[in-house]
């Protein structure tokens, strides 16, 4: 097991309370930052750490912070994205449920760096019981003087509260989140202007994922350079991976970036292999929005190198033979799973969750769902497979927010790697309703 920076104390009894958390080294980063550092210095450490956004896009956090506009006399906001609705992703939930004070600590230090006197945690409405946990922890932090006016005598004021959503995947998109937090429908905004200039209430705003904000705590405690020593290349630090599907031991793991995918799936410290002695068929390594990989591209790249748990290695081969680390929602399929069915299931998800603002996404996701439904139920024809590719092209790049792409790319990847299985659903209609296709053969040469 590698180093654990976020979940080090997840099994300490009572760690959700202020006192136990504090005894285990909690809130040190607040003391350090507020008493001995300037906001600029905190930003510098985050930049040095190489931390990249843990919400899915992997954008460098320090750089994002440095873009925040700072007009005189205008408030700035930090929003924590706890919407966590990407299928396969349940890591933020684990962190907040187990160690709520870690997120609160990160919020205080990050807000100090950004000069935000008010911040909000926007949490998906279904996590209402976690909202209760967070509010209890926040109340404790106020009581102990870590929130409110003049924190630790530093002159820094900070208020923090939690706001629930109402059930809408799209509210994880940062501008939809802002709309929702303003009490409106979660329709993404056109960019520019970017939230860094005009966000919540038209004020400069930073939106960061739960895990990104939590990671600021060890970065300030140990220094950005120390943090950057963990991991590999531009994938610095540790990453929470939520593993699910047909695994012996699904769950949330904190990994040092750079371990092999092989070790993560089969290693004793991690998922311990495929459940029920079955074989691996495919893997979606970063949440439902990233391309699916067939078994022969999961643990090795097309070039035959070990695939590693890093942003770069998972993306190796581009969309032709790679995928993405995404949100860390690691979904594993065994040999009994039907790729057509799963592709249809995900397409239905996106059709359900499209906010409906742009026609290519609203109509396109619905079309894909219908066509895939036909194929899955043995009523499709060969043209349908090409039709999917066509719809894909119409959506891609033609929408206000990336949900359209997130819906299109996984379908394209499934057809790219599993075309045989799609065609089998057309050629062997009856057979395809009775049994599953099984494993696909490894191609002799991979482009």
């Amino acid at each position: 097991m590698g180093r654990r920076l976020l979940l080090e104390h997840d099994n300490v009894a009572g760690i959700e309370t202020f006192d136990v958390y504090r005894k285990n080294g909690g809130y040190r980063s607040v003391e350090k930052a507020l008493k001995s550092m300037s906001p600029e210095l905190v930003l510098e450490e985050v930049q040095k750490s190489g931390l990249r956004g843990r919400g899915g896009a992997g954008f460098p956090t320090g750089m994002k912070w440095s873009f925040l506009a700072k007009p005189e006399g205008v408030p700035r906001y930090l929003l924590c994205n706890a919407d966590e609705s990407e299928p396969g992703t349940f890591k933020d939930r684990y962190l907040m449920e187990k160690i709520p004070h870690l997120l609160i600590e990160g919020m205080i230090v990050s807000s100090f760096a950004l000069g935000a006197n008010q911040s909000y945690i926007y949490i998906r409405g279904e996590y209402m019981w976690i909202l209760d946990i967070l509010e209890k922890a926040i109340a404790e932090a106020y009581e102990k003087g870590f929130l409110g006016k003049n924190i630790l005598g530093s002159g820094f004021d900070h208020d923090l509260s939690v706001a629930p959503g109402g059930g809408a995947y799209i509210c994880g998109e940062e501008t939809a989140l802002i709309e929702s937090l303003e009490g409106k429908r979660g329709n993404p905004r056109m960019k520019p202007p970017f939230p860094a200039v005009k966000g919540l209430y038209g004020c400069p705003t930073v939106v960061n994922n739960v895990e990104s904000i939590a990671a600021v705590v060890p970065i300030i405690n140990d220094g950005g350079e120390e943090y950057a020593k963990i991991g590999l290349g531009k994938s610095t630090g540790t990453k929470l991976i939520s593993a699910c599907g047909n695994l012996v031991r699904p769950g949330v793991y904190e990994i040092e970036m750079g371990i092999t995918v092989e070790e993560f799936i089969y290693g004793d410290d991690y998922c311990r292999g495929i459940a029920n002695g079955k074989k691996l068929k495919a893997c979606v390594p970063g949440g439902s929005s990233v391309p699916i990989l067939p078994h022969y591209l999961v643990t090795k790249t097309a070039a035959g190198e070990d695939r590693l748990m890093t942003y770069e290695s998972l993306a190796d081969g581009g969309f032709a033979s790679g995928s993405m680390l995404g949100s860390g929602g690691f979904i594993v399929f065994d040999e009994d799973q039907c790729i057509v069915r799963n592709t249809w299931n995900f397409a239905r998800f996106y059709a359900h969750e499209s906010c409906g603002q742009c026609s290519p996404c609203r109509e396109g996701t619905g079309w894909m769902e219908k066509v895939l439904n036909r194929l899955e139920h043995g009523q499709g024809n060969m043209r349908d497979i090409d039709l999917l590719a066509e719809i894909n092209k119409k959506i891609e790049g033609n929408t206000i927010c990336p949900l359209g792409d997130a819906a299109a790319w996984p379908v394209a990847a499934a057809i790219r790697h599993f075309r045989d299985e799609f065609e089998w659903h057309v050629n062997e209609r009856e057979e395809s309703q009775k049994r599953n296709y099984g494993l696909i053969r490894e191609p002799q040469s991979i482009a």
Partner: protein
Amino acid sequence: MSSSHTDLSKRHSEKPVFSAEKMAEVQVLFAQYPEGKSKSALIRVLHMAEEEFGGWLSIETMDYVAEVFNIQPIEVYEVATFYTMFNLEPTGKYVFEVCRTGPCMLLGSDSIIDYIGTKLDIKVGETSADGMFTLKTSECLGACGYAPMLQCGKKYHEHLTKERVDEIITAYRAGQTPN
């Protein structure tokens, strides 16, 4: 799109009004936002209203919430119809939202949905004859590693099997909250 078609003719017979205690809670929420931005509390207050006024949002409830916020009723309807958690029609006493998304499907959510439907003699979207249970499906609820699962109120029931479902239903019927 997440908005649903709804029979807006269903109504509450009495005007819903928050108790003084609930109203105080609302004021606390308003204070979390800057001057003039209290609308930010709308989703939270709609959750409260749903809980207070029978588990669903009638036109009367939404109009009342608009009054509380001093905004136009349409601003409340817009929000209530966008977010899938809000029930725009009356439901059973307990609403089972069974996750049907990929990772749960890999571990058998389809058969859990079928099983509950058969057991309660209802289809997805319907309420059992005794008014106790409504069966719904939902998209990924962030419990994929503990699949299959269902949400009932604030509670997540995970690692479902047919036996677990039996226990859960029996407990709710007996007025207990299963763990």
